[in-house]
């Protein structure tokens, strides 16, 4: 009951954000200075085309009407139709989705594989040399541009040692895994500094909790307390930390897929810029925002399911 109540409350909190997102994305086209049709068409502008664009965007109608019609389409799952090749934006995104998902999940898994052990190592003895060393990692890591990490990984593992392909996405599942390993690793290395910091802090908090003290008082060994009490709880912390940083993660895929020439959702958007394909830019923006809101919500719900104290 408590969980359901919490889930309901949390869901209601999402609604204003969804409304805000729809307004922001809707206003994107109105934020274009001058006549959006001129901007969209650029050199190709003719009177007929300008009129056609006006009609397509519906900007000859009152603003509020336009917004509701935009919202109506959105509710039907329609993100508009690409100017360039006349395909529904939603199906264009769907076609690129698997690559983006490979990058996201690969990034999450590798980031946790890097961050969790380091955070545990650091937190297990606060202030010790190993803690100091681990704390330097985020200081250096935070300043590494992900495109640069990607290029250095290409140089090391793709060109010097021929372990992984340096571009493309492959055709089979295994090829996808191999092709997305280095990009996922770039994403993970970029994400790790943030994760290590948050996880270390979370771990230190857990170590000071009463149940850890009780376990220690009962005479349970350090290692067992660490593994069965602290690490288990740190998984919960990871879910929250990942939820909070999901926007950063999604943003990283957009950048990194470009370095490795992987045809994922971000490239769809970047290519749309030079083609002035307005519906794609709008559609991908709203799609990513929805992904972030949904994952945030899921992370909170998983957190509440794993840790009943949250819903109290």
């Amino acid at each position, binding site marked *: 009951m408590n969980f359901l109540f919490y889930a309901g409350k949390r869901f209601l909190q999402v609604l204003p954000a969804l409304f805000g997102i729809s307004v922001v994305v809707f206003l*994107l086209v109105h934020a274009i200075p001058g006549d959006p049709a001129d901007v969209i068409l650029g050199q190709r502008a003719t009177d007929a085309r300008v009129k056609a664009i006006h009609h397509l965007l519906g900007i000859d109608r009152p603003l509020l009407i336009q917004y509701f019609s935009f919202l109506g389409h959105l509710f039907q799952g329609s993100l508009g139709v690409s100017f360039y090749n006349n395909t529904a934006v939603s199906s264009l995104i769907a076609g690129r989705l698997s690559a983006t998902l490979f990058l996201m999940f690969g990034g999450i898994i590798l980031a946790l594989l890097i961050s969790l052990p380091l955070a545990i190592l650091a937190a297990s003895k606060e202030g010790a040399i190993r803690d100091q060393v681990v704390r330097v990692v985020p200081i250096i890591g935070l300043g590494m541009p992900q495109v640069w990490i990607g*290029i250095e990984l290409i140089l090391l593992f793709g060109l010097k040692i021929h372990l992984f392909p340096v571009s493309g996405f492959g055709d089979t599942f295994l090829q996808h895994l191999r092709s997305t390993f280095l990009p996922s690793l770039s994403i993970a290395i970029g994400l790790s500094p943030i994760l290590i910091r948050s996880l270390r802090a979370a771990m230190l908090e857990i170590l000071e909790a009463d149940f850890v003290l009780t376990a220690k008082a009962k005479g349970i060994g350090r290692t067992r307390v660490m593994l069965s009490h602290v690490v288990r709880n740190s998984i919960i912390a990871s879910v929250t930390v990942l939820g909070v940083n999901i926007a950063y993660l*999604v943003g990283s895929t957009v950048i990194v897929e470009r370095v490795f020439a992987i045809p994922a959702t971000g490239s769809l*958007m*970047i290519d749309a810029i030079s083609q002035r394909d307005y519906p794609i830019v709008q559609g991908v923006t709203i799609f990513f925002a929805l992904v972030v809101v949904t994952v945030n919500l899921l992370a909170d719900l998983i957190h509440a399911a794993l840790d009943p104290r949250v819903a109290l």
Partner: protein
Amino acid sequence: MRTQRFPGKGIVKRLNFSANTALYSGIIIIGLLALIAIAAPLLSHYDPTGQDLENTLIAPTRHHLLGTDQLGRDVLTRIMYGARIDLTIGILAVVFPFILGTTLGLISGWRGGLFDTLVMRIVDTTIAFPFYVMAIALVFVVGAGPKAIILAISLVGWVAYCRIVRAAVLVAKELDYVHAAKLSGLPTSRILRKHVLPNVITQAIIFSMSDIVLSILAIVSLGYLGLGVPIPTAEWGSMIQEGQAYILQQWWIPTIPGVMVVITGFGLSLIGDGLVKRLNK
């Protein structure tokens, strides 16, 4: 505000020392980078955009310490001039979000109520957009270049300051000195400016150090995507992008601009960490 005293004089000294070491090392690193950026024309007699098509992609020599790129431009010169662009835009880009976020966070935390709810809903909406997605969309709207970068960072960046300052205000407004100021009948604007702000702004200042790193990363990443500072201006991100094609022969061309970003980030993080230790005492 904690007024806890440390147990021994020796420990106090040591803590101060390590905080100061971090702070001063950071200041020295950033100072040197700034010096290189400012003095670039004195340090190199090459034109950062001057092409020399007879000497393209040459390995490091006495005349070209880091060799030349695919258009025969001196790589070291471009890196030094790149520092100008990346540092300047990186710092400029956090000024507006700092002011806007701090102000909104201050008022929002102090007043609460409808204003607070409204601001927090705008915060929720803003954080739903991944930064780079928002930045790319804005490039579409206003065109590539420093304007779009600063706009994107401003539109997204104020949120962090707003949340940090708001949280600090929520704590501060229950403290005795604020109550005392209220009771003595001072006008709200004065209490906010003279009593609350000085105590909550430290957190924002500390965060601004890592925020500058993030904004430099944004400039570099957008530069790499070809959506940042337009070529042929020397900028670290576009240098990384252009160098990627020649990475097997001249690995240092895309590598060193990245190392410069790492050094910048390292210096700023040290300043941030040093400030944390000094200001939070």
